[in-house]
């Protein structure tokens, strides 16, 4: 919190931290990244293909048939996680009052982020490539 100087005293000492600058920057960088990746992702899955086609087998054999697709989707995952969770942090800090409530919500949020990271990474890494031996 910005320390407010007493009613009419002179200079206050700065108490800034570098964290918020980083968050601000990451939001913007991932925003640009997502603009390309997320929109492309959505287009591929809705305009190039139709949702009806995209069974588990389809994903395993066609969509993720090359390393590059997996790499791109993993990149998308990372961006979304950073962007989405830092974004949600902003919303939570804005609207969740009280130290404890906010701490709990944020902890839950960060744990969710880790969970999604694990789930997403596991599936991208472990889903067998077509043609590879089971």
């Amino acid at each position, binding site marked *: 919190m910005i320390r407010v100087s007493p009613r009419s005293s002179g200079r206050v000492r700065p108490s800034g931290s570098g964290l918020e600058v980083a968050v601000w920057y990451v939001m*913007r960088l991932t*925003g*640009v990244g*997502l*603009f390309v990746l*997320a*929109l492309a992702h*959505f*287009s591929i899955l*809705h*305009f190039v293909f*139709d*949702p*009806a086609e*995209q*069974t*588990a*087998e389809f*994903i*395993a054999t066609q969509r993720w048939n090359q390393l590059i697709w997996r790499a791109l989707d993993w990149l998308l*995952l990372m961006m*979304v996680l950073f962007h*989405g969770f830092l*974004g*949600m942090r902003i*919303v939570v800090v804005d*609207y969740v*009052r009280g130290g404890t409530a906010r701490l709990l919500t944020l902890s839950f949020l960060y744990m*969710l982020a880790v969970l*999604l990271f694990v*789930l*997403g990474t*596991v*599936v991208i890494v*472990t*889903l067998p490539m077509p043609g590879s031996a089971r």
Partner: protein
Amino acid sequence: MPSAPALLQRFPRLASGGDAHREVLMNVLRYRGREGMVAWAFHRISGVGIFLFVVLHVIDIYLVGGDPRAYNELLAFYASVPGRFLEVLLGAALLYHALNGMRIIIIDLWPTMTAYHRQIWWASWVIFVAVGVPGAAIILRPIWLPILRGIGVA
């Protein structure tokens, strides 16, 4: 719809500052912000909306490896008619959020553009409609295509 001040008059308790959350909400509803405020409200709502979908989506993709049958069941819902409407909604949120996000980034990097933020906002709506309407049409194809066929147009 009654205006926010009228609502306040009917429910005076809403106007009192007792409850911090209610106060924040009432301010947001009562204040007649212009383009910038509407842009922000949509941005926030769409951001949270997409976020919720992403949580779901990462889990469902995990199922591709973990439990393909469950995934396929979910997919059936995605491909159904209500599912498609929700996808249009998701697409709209994403498109809006992406365009407005770029608007914010442009203004951030180039503060002189603040003078034109309204124009950029309306321009982004033009793009939204130009891209969004055909996009929605494609997603909803399984709904209107059979109808058109039925009346013999296509």
